[in-house]
Each structure stands twice: as C-alpha cells, then as structure tokens.
C-alpha cells in the first residue's frame, strides 16, 4: 500500500515520530504511543481557500481536505454544521460578557458530536475494505456507529457498559446493531474491546481506526471559527472523557492558523469534567502532567472514563494555551442543564451540564475573565439521558377540563403575566 493517500501523508507516532502506512492501526509498535494522521499541508493550502469554502455544502465535509479520507466521503455525508448560538441570557447566568453555544445536541443523524468522528471512521473503514464495524462506547458513540453503519449497509457490533441509560441502549438497538452489554464500567469495556479487536478483523472505530476517527472532532473547531467569521474564540470550554475532543479542537484551531485561514489570537482551551470522574481535572489542579486513573461514579455517564487515553495531551494543551480544568458535582450538572434549557431553550445531556457548569466555575474563579467571550461545546442531547433529571424537574400540574380549576391553579402562581 502506498504511504500517502489524498491529502494524508502517513500515520505518525505522537511520541517518537516514527511513520506508518495509512492502514487500520493505532499504536506505535515501538513505544505504544498513539498514531496520528500527518497531512500534506502545502497541498491542502492550495485547495482550501476561503472563497471556495463559502460555496461548499453546509456539512462538516466542507473541510474535507483536513479530514482523513483518501477520496470523497461515503458515510455520514450530511453530518455537522450545527448551529453556533449567541447565548446572551446564558452569558448573564455565567457572569461573562459574551457566550456562544456550539450546539451538537442537534447533530445529524444521532444528536451528538459523535456523528462527526463516526462518519470519518466509517468512510475510511469502507476505503480500507472493511464490512463490519464496531466500537466500545459510553452510549453516544454506540448510537452513531449503529445508525451510520445501518445507512451505509455495514454490519455493526457495539459494546457498552450494561448499566447505561435506557435511552442510549434503545437508540443503538433500533438500527439493528448487535449490542453487547458488559457488566463493568467503560474502562473495562475498553480493555475487552482492545482484546477483541486483536482477535477479530473488524474496524473498531476507537481502537484500530482511532487515528482517523479522532480527527473527525476537528471539524467542530473549523465550524466554530467559520461561524465566528474566521475569528478564533478567546475561550472554548470542552467536556473531557478521554480528552480527545479537547486536543482535536486545539489542533483544529492551530491548523486554521497554519493555513492562513485564521489569525493566531491565542485561543485558550479549557477542560470540563464531572467531579465523580475527574482524573484530568484533578491532575490539572495538582499541577501534575499526568493523571491518576479513577473508578467513575457520576451521572455524566458519557464522560465516565477513568483511564483517559488522551489525558496527558489534554493537560499539555491546557497548559500551552492558558486554559484551565475544573469539575462539577452531580447537582451542579443538573443545575447547569436546567440553566441552559431555561436561558437558551437547549436541552443537553449530562455532559453538556458538565460543560456549562464548569464554565460558570471558571468565570467565578477568574480563569475566564468576566469581560471576555467564551464558546461552550455542547456535545449531546438531553432526550438521551432523561433518567438523570427525571425526579428533579417537577411534575406537570393536573386538573379536570374545567376553567374554574384552571383559574384556581394560576391564582397561586405569582409568575403569571396578564399578557
């Protein structure tokens, strides 16, 4: 197989720089360092001009040169270009001058940012000749693999912790995926999948396809920049599970600078975790450059990774960009979910609550100055984690179909306005 393909040059070890062919492989044979796609940026620069970009369809694939497929994508061609909302009411709640919400809760087709990474991984898997795709997942990835594989006519296996939210389980089964619940937490699912991937010749999107898969996250950064008229945000707050999304958003911004599409305004990237699973945030607070693995206990199950593969690089990015990490408790997560819903009409899942709640903490502690502007990455949809808020949002009032009963009801409600 030739080493380069399309705009990709090779796979390259992040630790030692050794290069490998563009196959389904994810680990350096020498030091186990993660492999990353290296690109031919001179070639990309010639093909990616602002004027040409403006004419392309509004999907994440408008940045196709920076996404690791050799030819035109074949899976998830409609993914991305989610709204970037100016969130004035939420900015007040956060205590900051300006806030924006990048709303991947309405990403197509499965309502989370995972559609970005999966469309890249599956397009590349088809290029490499795979017929079966698989993943280890905390839920959103499973949904996206199941749906996109179904639409592409691929067989799929998804491996999840057996105690996942019911919505996320049903959202995988409906597409006809083979769903395997593992009695254990995500890190145990991950370990098993690494062993299964070594034995079965499938395309595991976050194991042997990881170098391609992870690059899909960069599209969120490109879209944010273009939607802000090619200005990079002063601050971006990103939820951290493995830490991969945070490192790829940073990489996306840096690539736009390298290609001359955006000015280097020193964008800070901040990381958000749930206190019940906060190995990266804890390491940041202790000034360590490596994390200590933990056993997760949080309602933010989509972020419950106790051994974050990219934790080391996430810490490095925050340090280099002047970003910070913080974490929020389960109650703070629910409070932030309600705040986003009540201020902006956006119902996010628990991970979004982690991002919004952590942003508030970072503003309060001065890590994000009150006079600055911040972009919040909301990565998933609240309809998938109803269990997390079920007993915390009250119940509807119930009355007979009678005007008198209704009048009695609103007499007690001081918030009712006359028009």
């Amino acid at each position, binding site marked *: 197989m030739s080493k380069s393909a399309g705009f990709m040059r090779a796979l390259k070890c992040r*630790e030692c720089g050794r290069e490998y062919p563009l196959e389904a492989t*994810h*680990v*350096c*044979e*020498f*030091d*186990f*360092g*993660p492999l990353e796609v290296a690109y031919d940026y001179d070639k990309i620069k010639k093909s990616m001009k602002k004027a040409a970009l403006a004419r392309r369809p509004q999907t994440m694939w408008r940045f196709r040169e920076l996404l690791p497929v050799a030819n035109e994508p074949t899976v998830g061609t409609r993914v991305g270009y989610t709204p970037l909302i100016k969130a004035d009411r939420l900015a007040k709640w956060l205590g900051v001058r300006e806030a924006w919400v990048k709303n991947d809760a309405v990403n197509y087709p499965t309502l989370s940012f995972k559609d970005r990474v999966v469309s890249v991984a599956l397009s590349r898997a088809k290029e490499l000749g795979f017929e079966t795709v698989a*993943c*280890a*997942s*905390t839920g*959103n*990835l*499973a949904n996206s693999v199941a749906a996109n594989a179904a639409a592409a006519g691929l067989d799929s296996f998804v491996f999840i912790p057996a105690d996942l939210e019911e919505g996320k389980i049903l959202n995988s089964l409906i597409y006809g995926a083979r769903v395997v619940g593992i009695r*254990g937490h*995500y*890190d*145990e699912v*991950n*370990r098993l*999948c*690494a*062993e299964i991937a*070594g*034995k079965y010749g499938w395309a595991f999107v*976050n*194991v042997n396809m*990881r170098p391609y*898969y*992870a690059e899909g996250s960069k599209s969120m950064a490109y879209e944010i920049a273009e939607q802000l008229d090619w200005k990079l945000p002063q601050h971006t707050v990103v939820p951290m*599970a*493995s*830490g*991969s*999304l945070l490192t790829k958003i940073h990489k996306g911004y840096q690539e736009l600078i390298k290609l001359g599409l955006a000015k280097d305004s020193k964008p800070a990237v901040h990381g958000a975790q749930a206190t019940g699973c906060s190995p990266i945030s804890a390491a940041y607070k202790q000034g360590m450059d*490596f994390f*200590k*693995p933990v*056993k997760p206990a949080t309602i933010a199950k989509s972020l419950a*990774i106790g*051994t*974050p*593969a*990219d934790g*080391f690089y996430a810490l490095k990015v925050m340090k280099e960009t002047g970003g910070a990490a913080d974490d929020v408790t389960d109650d703070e997560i629910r409070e932030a979910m309600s705040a986003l819903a009540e201020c902006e009409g956006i119902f996010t899942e628990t991970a979004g609550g982690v991002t919004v709640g952590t942003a508030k903490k970072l503003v309060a502690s001065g890590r994000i100055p009150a006079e600055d502007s911040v972009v919040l990455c909301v990565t998933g949809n609240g309809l998938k984690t109803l269990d997390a808020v079920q007993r915390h949002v009250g119940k509807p009032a119930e009355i007979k179909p009678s005007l008198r009963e209704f009048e009695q009801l609103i007499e007690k409600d001081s918030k009712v306005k006359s028009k």
Partner: protein
Amino acid sequence: MAVTVRIPTPLRKLTNEQETVEVESVTIGAAIDELEGKFPGIKERLVGEDGEVRRFVNVYVNEEDIRFLENRATPLKDGDDVSIIPAIAGG
C-alpha cells in the same frame, strides 16, 4: 506456578506471533524481566527510561489495572491472567 500473559498485536512480532505466553514470576516487574529473557527487546517497549511502565501501556492482572494495585510490585500467583493493552480513545 504459571501465569498467562496476553500479548497485544503490536508486540507479537517479538513473540513469534504468539498471542499468549506463560511466565513463572511472582511480581509484574519480574514478569517483564522474564519476558525480556525469552523475547529480547520486549522490555524496552513496555518500560520507559525512568524504569516505569510507559504511560501509554496499561497492564492488568485479572482485569484490574496495576495502577490500582501495586504497580510493578503487584504480586502474581498461579493461574493469574495478565493483559497488556494500549490506551484507547473515548466513546
């Protein structure tokens, strides 16, 4: 006394494509040395210059991460399963 070590794909070139290897050591640290005796070059892949297990290598004894146990001093007994697994991206 026999402990089964599962060899991950990236290291199987060193083990003549063997997926599992039996060792007799009583700690993880000693087991890595024993592997080095059998398959020269393997230790360098697993252990960094500082003598610690490399940060992108996860070692498990009977499904438990050695970082929750006693790291390289983690004891091994007859019938234990050791897995060596590269770190994986999120999901």
